[in-house]
Every structure is written in C-alpha cells, then in structure tokens.
C-alpha cells in the first residue's frame, strides 16, 4: 500500500507515448504569465524607496518588500531590501526581461546603483482548450500511479504533474503541472521554458481521448 503513494517517475503507461511527437494539428498552449527574478545587487532602504518612487505600495508589517507597478510592460515587481526582485505579469520572456530592466531603472532614479544580475524565468503559466469534455475520474484512475490527482471535494480540476527528466547537459528540466478541467480547458503551470510547456502538454493530450465525452449534443456551449 505504501508503494501506491509513491510516484514512479520512470514508468510509462505506454511505451509508444515515449516517442510520440507533437502533431501539428494539436492545440497549442498559449502562454499567459511569466514570473522572473533578478538581483540588483544593492541594499535598498524600502521606506526611502516607497517615498521616492512612483506607483509603489509598502506595508512592512504585511510584506517585507516594496510593491511597484509599471504600465508597459504591465507588470508588478516585489523589491526587497537585499536588492533582489521578483517580476510578475509579463506575457513573454523578452517582455519579462524588459520589465525587470524598467523596474531596475525606477530604482536607479531614486539614487541607487543597481546592477542587473542573475535574471531568470522562474515560472511560465499557459492555458489551452482541447475542445471536448473530459471524464476526470476515469483519467485519474488510470494515471494515478504516474502523478494524476483528482479530489473533487477539494478542487474541481485534476492535477497532473509531468516529470520531464534532464536536459542534454544533465541539468534537470522543470516539472510542469497540468490542471485539467471537465470542460476540456487546461492550465499548464510550473514550466521554466516555453518548450517545457509544449512538451508536457504533448505528453498528456493524447491520453485524454480515451476519456472524452460529449455531454448534451444539442447544447450550444462548447
């Protein structure tokens, strides 16, 4: 019984799926949000920053960081006294980097001398609609051993964690999680590269067809 709680990352349900390529007519997940971090490598007086910079909030008892927003790219940054920063809300990797630079520039205008070190995308969120309803219970039953979790009393979506193994140089790839809903809409989260998004979706998409169901054929909602 203890074994059924362990996820066997190496076992595949079906050997063919290991080599199944992403088909061109398959739906493509659309990226929605990028989360990135950067290190400005300079100590910041948050109280001073919250008085000098524009479009900032600072509630020290709630969060030990200044919350700054810019309009283009429309993003929110959390800036810490250590000089480390989190940037949320960009729609692409390039925009995330640009936004981080703009936030750093805002800090610079307040009298600091920020650098721009260690910029890294930490998380990518994407969404996709497979276009058909999915029987989550059946899906969970079949793939529970490889990471599918479905507890409708807790959350209406099925979460399916994908383990992508390693890169060519041996470094570990991210482990994106897919949230699959009965409607056929899916959220991919936890990926660190856009390729990870596509690959993790590509692994799960073919598995869904066995659990496809069409509810009311006269219904006009998709």
């Amino acid at each position, binding site marked *: 019984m203890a074994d059924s709680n362990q996820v066997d990352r190496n076992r595949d349900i079906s050997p063919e799926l290991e080599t199944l390529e992403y088909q061109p007519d398959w739906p493509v997940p659309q990226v929605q949000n990028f989360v990135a971090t950067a290190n400005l490598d300079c100590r910041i007086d948050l109280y001073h920053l919250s008085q000098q910079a524009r479009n900032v*909030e600072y509630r020290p008892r709630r969060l030990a960081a200044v919350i700054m927003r810019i309009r283009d790219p429309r993003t929110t940054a959390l800036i810490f006294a250590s000089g480390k920063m989190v940037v949320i809300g960009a729609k692409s990797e390039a925009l995330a980097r640009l936004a981080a630079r703009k936030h750093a520039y805002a800090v610079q205008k307040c009298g600091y001398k920020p650098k721009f070190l260690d910029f890294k995308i930490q998380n990518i969120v994407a969404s996709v609609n497979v276009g058909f309803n999915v029987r989550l219970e059946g899906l969970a039953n079949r793939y529970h051993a490889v990471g599918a979790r479905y507890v409708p009393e807790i959350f209406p979506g099925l979460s399916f964690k994908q383990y992508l193994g390693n890169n060519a140089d041996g470094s570990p790839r991210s482990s994106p999680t897919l949230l699959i809903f009965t409607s056929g809409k899916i959220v991919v989260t936890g990926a660190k590269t856009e390729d990870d998004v596509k690959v993790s979706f590509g692994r799960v998409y073919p598995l869904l067809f066995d659990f496809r169901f069409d509810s009311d054929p006269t219904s006009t909602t998709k």
Partner: protein
Amino acid sequence: MAASNSFYDLYRHGSLGTTLTDALDELIGDESIAPQLAMKVLTQFDRVVAETLQEKVKSRLTFKGSLDTYRFCDEVWTFLIRNVTFKMDGNQGQVVADKVKIVSCSAKRNDDK
C-alpha cells in the same frame, strides 16, 4: 500623521485650516495670545473638523479621471489624477481640473476604538 492628539492634523492644510493658522499667527505676533493657546485652538480645530465631517456632512461627491500615479506609504495613500470631472449631488453642474492630488488617511486609527 500620528500626533500627540488622537485626530489627524491634515485638515490644517485646507483653506479653513490655513486661514485659522494665519489668524492665530497674527495674534501671537501682536502678543494678544500665547503660543500654547494657539496650539490648543488648532488641536480643537482638528477634533471639530473631523467630527463634523463624520457626523454632519451628508452630501456626496463623485469624480472620474485618469490615475497618473499612486503611492501607499506610512498608511497614507497619495493619488495624482489627471483630467478630472467632479460631480456634486444631482445635476448641479460639474467642476473640471487638469491635475488633482488626493492625500488620504485611514478612517480607523490604530489607537482609536
């Protein structure tokens, strides 16, 4: 904003407050009143304005504009709004302004009931 009295002193910066302060300064200059009395007057002013606005003023004002900048620091909100139209109760006409600065403190002070 946290003064030795338990009411905000921000109303001293409005038209009424500055006029009162000027009048008191003049009286102090003439040596008609002591500076401590002027302080007491202003403290009383803080309390009266706060209470009157809270209890006696019922009219409403709405305004629309574009938010230029915002800031929240020390529990004080500061907004800078552009191209603002103010509307009073009903269609009594409206007032427009290019730039409006709003400084706002919490209605609940942490030392109050």
